[in-house]
C-alpha cells in the first residue's frame, strides 16, 4: 500500500518538503549534539530533563488519545467512528515514533539504548515504559495495517485481529499510566509525588489526542476530500469536553491539597509555575507565561466547544476550539509539568532551564519527522478510502 504515498498533488509534496527542511536542520543539530554531548543543551544537574522528555511525556498522551476512537467503535459498536479509527491508530503510530526519537535524543549514550533489553530491570518504571510503548506501537501498526488491507480488498478483517484490537485498549491506558509512574513514584519531588498524576495524564490525553484528530479531520476535509462525518466529530467533541474538564478538575485538586494543607513542598512548584517563586530576593518565573497561556487557551477552547453557536456554526470555530485545547494541554504537560517538577531542587535552590537553539531545532525536527510520517500514513489511509468509494 506504500505506493499510495508516492502519488500526490503539488501541495502534498510542498508540505513534505516543508517538513523535510526542518528534519534536515534537526539532523545537523543532532550530529552536533552527538559529537559534543548533551552539554550543548540547556539542561543541567538541577534540571536534568528538558524539552526532550517533556515532549515525550506529552506525545505519549497524544498516542493514548487514539483509543478514544478505538474503544467506542470496537467495544460499544459505535458505527460513526468506523471511518476514522484508522486516523487514531495512525496518529498513535507517529506519536509513538516521536516519543522514541525524543528518548533517543535525550540519552547520553544512545548507542547503549539496547542495554534496557539486555539487562532487563523490572523494578525500573523506564523498563516497563519501554515495554508498553513498543507493545502499543506494534499493536497499532498491526491492527491499522491488517484492517486497512482488508478494507481495501473489500473483505471482513480476519477474526484473529480483534484479539489484538481489544488488547490495544488496555495498552493505551497503560502507556500513559506507566509514563505517569516515571514521575509519581519518585520520593522527594513533591509536585510529581501525587496519586492524581496518572488520572490527570489520562484525562489531558483523552482531550488533547482527540482534539488533534478533530483538527486533522478538518484539514483532511479541505485538502483531501475526506469527510469524517458530522456525527463522529460531534461525539469526539463531547469526549474532548468531558476529558478537558476532568483534567482541570484534577489541576484544581492539586491546588487545594497544596494550598489548604499549606505544606511548603506541595506549594512550591505550583507557586513557581503560576506566580513565580521568590528565593533570596529574586523572583523566578520563567514558566509563568506558559502556564497562564495554558489557562487562557483552555478557557477559549472550552468556551468555543461548549457554546452551541460556535460548535455548530462553522468548522473554523470548532477547529480553533480544538486547537486551543490541544495547545493548552501541550503547555500544561509538554512544558510545565516536567520542567516545573525540578523546581526547587532537593537542596532548596532554584535553577531555571532555558533550552538552547540546538535543542530547540532538534525538538522541532522530531515533531516535523512525526508529522512527515503522519502525512504519509494518512495519505495511504485516505487513498485506500477513496479507492473503495470509487
Amino acid at each position, binding site marked *: 500500500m506504500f505506493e499510495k504515498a508516492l502519488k500526490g498533488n503539488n501541495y502534498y509534496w510542498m508540505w513534505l518538503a516543508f517538513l523535510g527542511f526542518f528534519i534536515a536542520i534537526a539532523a545537523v543539530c543532532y550530529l552536533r549534539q552527538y559529537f559534543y554531548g548533551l552539554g550543548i543543551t540547556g539542561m543541567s544537574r*538541577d534540571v536534568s530533563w528538558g524539552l526532550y522528555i517533556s515532549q515525550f511525556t506529552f506525545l505519549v498522551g497524544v498516542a493514548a488519545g487514539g483509543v478514544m476512537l478505538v474503544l467506542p467503535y470496537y467495544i460499544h459498536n459505535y458505527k460513526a467512528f468506523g471511518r476514522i479509527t484508522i486516523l487514531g491508530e495512525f496518529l498513535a503510530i507517529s506519536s509513538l515514533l516521536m516519543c522514541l526519537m525524543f528518548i533517543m535524543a535525550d540519552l547520553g549514550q544512545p548507542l547503549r539504548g539496547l542495554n534496557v533489553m539486555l539487562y532487563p530491570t523490572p523494578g525500573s518504571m523506564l523498563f516497563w515504559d519501554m515495554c508498553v510503548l513498543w507493545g502499543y506501537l506494534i499493536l497499532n501498526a498491526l491492527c491499522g495495517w491488517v484492517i486497512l488491507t482488508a478494507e481495501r480488498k473489500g473483505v471482513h478483517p480476519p477474526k484473529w485481529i480483534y484479539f489484538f484490537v481489544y488488547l490495544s485498549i488496555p495498552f493505551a491506558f497503560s502507556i500513559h499510566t506507566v509514563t505517569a509512574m516515571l514521575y509519581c513514584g519518585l520520593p522527594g519531588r513533591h509536585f510529581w509525588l501525587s496519586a492524581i498524576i496518572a488520572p490527570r495524564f489520562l484525562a489531558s490525553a483523552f482531550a488533547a489526542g482527540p482534539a488533534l484528530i478533530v483538527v486533522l479531520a478538518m484539514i483532511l476535509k479541505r485538502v483531501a476530500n475526506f469527510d469524517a462525518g458530522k456525527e463522529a466529530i460531534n461525539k469526539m467533541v463531547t469526549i474532548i469536553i468531558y476529558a478537558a474538564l476532568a483534567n482541570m478538575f484534577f489541576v484544581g485538586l492539586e491546588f487545594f491539597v497544596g494550598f489548604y494543607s499549606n505544606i511548603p513542598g506541595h506549594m512550591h512548584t505550583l507557586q513557581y509555575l503560576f506566580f513565580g517563586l521568590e528565593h533570596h530576593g529574586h523572583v523566578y518565573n520563567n514558566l509563568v507565561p506558559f502556564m497562564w497561556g495554558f489557562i487562557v487557551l483552555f478557557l477559549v477552547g472550552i468556551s468555543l466547544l461548549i457554546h452551541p453557536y460556535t460548535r455548530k456554526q462553522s468548522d473554523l470555530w470548532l477547529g480553533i476550539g480544538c486547537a486551543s485545547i490541544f495547545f493548552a494541554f501541550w503547555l500544561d504537560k509538554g512544558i510545565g509539568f516536567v520542567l516545573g517538577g525540578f523546581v526547587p531542587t532537593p537542596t532548596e535552590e532554584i535553577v531555571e532551564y532555558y533550552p538552547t537553539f540546538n535543542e530547540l531545532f532538534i525538538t522541532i525536527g522530531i515533531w516535523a519527522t512525526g508529522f512527515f510520517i503522519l502525512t504519509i500514513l494518512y495519505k495511504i489511509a485516505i487513498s485506500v478510502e477513496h479507492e473503495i468509494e470509487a
Partner: protein
Amino acid sequence: MTNFENAFPTNTNLYRDEATAKHQLPILCNHCDKPPCVRACPTKATFRNKDGMVVMDYHRCIGCRFCMAACPYGSRSFNWREPADFVKNLNRDFPRRMRGVVEKCTFCDERVSAGKQPACVEACGESKAIVFGNLNDPNSEIRKMLKENHTIQRNPALGTIPSVFYIV
C-alpha cells in the same frame, strides 16, 4: 559544601542558632539502604554492592538520567561534556570516565576494595571530621561514634535509610 538550610531543608527553624546557620557542611551521596536511584535505573548500571555502597558501572549507563530525577538529595551529576578535557594529571588507579553517563560519590569503592579509606576521609586526616566504616560491625569506630553523639540524617522521612550521619 553547602549551608545547613540547604542540606536539611525539612529541618526548618525561624530562630536558628548562629553557629548552625553559618557553618558549611559537605553533602554527598547518602548511600541509602533503600536507594531510589537504584530502583529507578533501567539497566542496573547503578547498584548497591556487597558492602552496601551505592556504586556505578559507567560502561553500562545509558545516560537516561532517571536516577538524577529519583535522588531526593540531588547527589547525582551527569557528564554533559567530555570529562577528559578537564583532567590535567591522569590518575591510572581511577577508572576512565566518559561523557554521557551519570556520576556519583561511590565512597571511592575502588580504594575501599584495596583496603584504603575514601579520598575525602583521607584528606581530613587526623582531624576525624569524616569517619568511614562498617555500620554492620557493632565494634567499629563509626558505630562507637554514633553511640556517643547525637546525629541526624538528611530527610530520613522519605524511607531511604541514609547511611551518612551528621554531627551538627
